[in-house]
């Protein structure tokens, strides 16, 4: 079966080479899209075949001793490979129409294509890696190539700024991971993931290693205090890349956290509790910030943070289950987290690719300047709406299904544990429900403002190409399929979760609900709603008048209800925490004058933590800047002093 994977990877590389070699850029782009989607299909098939029948020996290339120790095919790796490939195929399909607007900059487009294909390849190899050094190599490759991909329009200052923030932050994350893996290596004496062990008996090393590993992976995943790079990078990235960033690259952080849980055994209680707390925090504040955004991609980026929080809640529940070795809780928590990871990859790709279509038609990312799209592209709006419903966690789509598993986990643990647990779990349940409510508010906001009403800025024609419809349609189909019939994915998830379940009583998904019953109900709901819609549409004549008009006839499109006013009530609750600022200038004379409203959503982590720390460090560095202006003799003196310092420390360390 490895031959599938080999063909897939080599097709991806060939696509990158062809993107450079083929002279006409239009043709190069077409060939690239064709070759890469074929390659990704091969890898998808490879992941599916192996997931359905997990290989007995989890080795890739068992014939080659060196390679087989570098890569491993266990359930977790294969599941993430499935996520990567199934999110990458639609992104690649959308590349064609998105990059059509940049064809006048052929060199930049070619560079983007090469770096994008290397991002795809390194992400896939990263999750299969079994050797810490190989993992770090692909991790770095993924990070750097994504950075190069961000620079498609590198002449714009906002892109330079945002990509630098991404670069610096992920570099710091990699630094943390180096420390993590070196500590693991010193504990176990091996570089292989399958040999790593981290036990609390090792004392301080356990805490230090866990801290650095968690910080490194959490920066990548975007948990709340570490998320500040994410809105910057996502809003400036070319949309196909930001779809992939949000759907897959931040999930490598989740993958890393899963691996960490595998290394740490036994798992102390504070890990699960800590992950639960930080995740609930990320989920609530992520969605709250999202509500305050005007920039559609920034808004979606904050929704990524929210969903990472939901995934984290599942992981935290699973950790509690591992600590007390309660099998159903492990299954519900970790299984829910894995399922939500997959679902988020799907519907977030759908939303990001949809926002890319909007951007390439209207050339703006500001929600307040859109409107009336439903008249020119009703099917496109329908697909976007499916993604919105899925991400808000409403039945009968896949977002509901994974959150349902996590809710079940709350109830399960509340009934298993006594004491204060029911109270905590009640808090978590309310928190998660609150998150769902805010997400719903946020997506009603963008759907109503962007799609309904009149056009705020006139645009000639709204075109959606066939390939766009194909990629968005595929994603929407998967959303619908896993919402109604999740049984097909829950089987593989069970085999993945079995890694973390010890003992004989491994639970399967069929224990927790009568899934066929749920499928029946959901199918009935969909049937009912669609017949209602058809009946309603065919029966009544559509009345056309100004949207949000309230009876006033002489309305212009600027008088429409805005996204800011929609979100104002909810955001007003937590203005001080969220760093929201607004300036209002209302004329107080009788005659009309110019009036202004300006609002800006800051970020508590960026404004309150990162920027002060950064300027403090910069200040300290500039205060010793004079050292770098001297000549070579001073450099040699510094070297001597450094050597003396290290030598002295080593001598003191050894003989005292």
């Amino acid at each position, binding site marked *: 079966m490895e031959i599938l994977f080999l063909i897939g990877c080599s097709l991806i590389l060939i696509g990158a080479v062809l993107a450079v070699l083929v002279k006409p850029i239009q043709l190069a782009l077409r060939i690239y899209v064709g070759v890469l989607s074929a390659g990704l299909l091969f890898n998808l098939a490879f992941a599916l075949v192996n997931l359905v029948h997990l290989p007995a020996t989890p080795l890739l290339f068992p014939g080659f001793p060196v390679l087989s120790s570098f890569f491993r095919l266990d359930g977790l790796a294969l599941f993430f490979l499935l996520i990567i490939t199934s999110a990458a195929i639609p992104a690649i399909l959308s590349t064609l129409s998105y990059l059509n607007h940049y064809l006048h900059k052929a060199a930049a487009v070619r560079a983007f294509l090469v770096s994008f294909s290397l991002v795809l390849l390194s992400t896939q190899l990263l999750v299969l890696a079994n050797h810490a050094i190989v993992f770090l190599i692909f991790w770095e490759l993924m990070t750097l190539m994504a950075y190069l991909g961000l620079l498609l329009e590198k002449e714009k200052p906002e892109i330079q700024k945002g990509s630098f923030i991404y670069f610096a932050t992920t570099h710091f994350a990699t630094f943390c991971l180096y420390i993590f893996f070196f500590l693991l290596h010193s504990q176990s004496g091996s570089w292989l993931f399958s040999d790593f062990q981290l036990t609390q008996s090792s004392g301080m090393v356990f805490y230090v290693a866990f801290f650095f590993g968690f910080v490194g992976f959490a920066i990548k995943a975007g948990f709340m205090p570490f998320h500040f790079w994410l809105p910057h990078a996502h809003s400036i990235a070319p949309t196909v890349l930001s779809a992939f960033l949000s759907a897959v690259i931040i999930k490598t952080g989740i993958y890393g956290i899963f691996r960490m849980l595998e290394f740490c055994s036994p798992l102390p209680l504070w890990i699960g509790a800590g992950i639960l707390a930080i995740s609930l925090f990320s989920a609530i504040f992520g969605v709250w910030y999202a509500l305050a955004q005007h920039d559609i991609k920034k808004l979606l980026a904050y929704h990524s943070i929210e969903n990472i929080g939901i995934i984290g809640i599942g992981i935290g529940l699973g950790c509690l289950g591992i600590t007390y070795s309660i099998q159903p809780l492990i299954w519900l928590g970790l299984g829910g987290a894995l399922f939500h990871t997959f679902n988020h990859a799907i519907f977030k790709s759908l939303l990001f690719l949809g926002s890319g279509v909007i951007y390439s038609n209207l050339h703006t990312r500001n929600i307040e300047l859109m409107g009336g799209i439903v008249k020119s592209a009703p099917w496109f709006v329908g697909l976007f709406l499916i993604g919105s419903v899925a991400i808000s966690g409403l039945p009968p789509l896949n977002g509901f299904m994974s959150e349902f598993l996590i809710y079940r986990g709350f109830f399960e643990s509340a009934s298993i544990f006594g004491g204060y647990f029911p109270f905590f779990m009640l808090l978590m349940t309310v928190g998660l429900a609150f998150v769902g409510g805010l997400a719903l508010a946020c997506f009603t906001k963008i759907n109503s403002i962007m799609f309904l009403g009149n056009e705020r800025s006139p645009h000639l024609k709204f075109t959606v190409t066939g390939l766009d419809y194909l990629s968005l349609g595929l994603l929407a189909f998967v959303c619908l399929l896993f919402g109604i019939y999740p049984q097909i994915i829950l089987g593989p998830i069970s085999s993945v979760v079995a890694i973390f379940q010890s003992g004989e009583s491994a639970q399967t998904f069929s224990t927790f609900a009568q899934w066929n019953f749920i499928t029946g109900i959901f199918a009935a709901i969909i049937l009912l709603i669609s017949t209602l819609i058809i009946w309603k549409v065919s029966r009544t004549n559509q009345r056309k008048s100004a949207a949000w008009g309230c009876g006033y006839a002489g309305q212009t499109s600027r008088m429409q209800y805005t996204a800011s006013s929609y979100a104002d009530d909810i955001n007003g609750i937590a203005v001080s925490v969220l760093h929201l600022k607004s300036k209002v200038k209302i004329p107080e004379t009788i005659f009309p004058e110019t009036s202004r409203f300006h609002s800006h959503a800051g970020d508590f982590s960026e404004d309150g933590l990162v920027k002060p720390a950064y300027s403090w460090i910069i200040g300290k560095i500039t205060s010793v800047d004079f050292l770098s*202006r*001297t*000549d*070579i*003799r*001073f450099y*040699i*003196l510094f070297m*001597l002093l450094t050597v003396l310092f290290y030598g002295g420390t080593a001598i003191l360390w050894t003989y005292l």
Partner: protein
Amino acid sequence: MENVLSILFCLTLLYLVVTSRIKTYVTILRIQGVLLSLIMIFPFIEHLSVHLLIIPIVSLIVKAIIIPRFVNKIVIDLDVKRIVEPSIQPFNFLLLSVFSMSVLFVSAHVLSGFTTIEPIPFASAFSAMIIGIFIIIFRKKLIIHVVGFLILENGILLFGTSLSAEMPTIVELGALLDIFVVVFLMGIVINRISSTFAQPDVTALGRLKD
């Protein structure tokens, strides 16, 4: 006998610290080259094998003949001032050097208690390294920097012989070749710089910065 030669080597280092004429520097380089090859010939006298003879002979040729001649040639070609321009009082420099050498000798004596080093060659080797670095730090003239690097290299070579375990021949030859290339390149650099700046010293190198 090795100890006596090492002590002599240390004395040349101290002389190097207080002198201010470039000619003396070159002479001392020659003397050090001879001393080093004498020190390294002792294993040959004990074992009488040919390949132990290679290093002393090569280092004698390179260190006592070729490099001093090359440095002299640069000095004459470029017509640099024949005195060094210290950036520290010679007496203070001497005090600093004597202090660090005494620290090194004492610590070598302490270390010899529980490792298999010979204290006097070990300490002299380290003193040569330190004083080579000091010369680079405290002297302005670029040609003196070359001498500083050479003395540093002498220290490394002596360090190899001071350990009772033998250094592989290939490593020593490599170090020798390395330093030869450095000196050669520095000569070229000095030549180039002198065509732009009147007096080649390291403060001029700062202007090459971007």
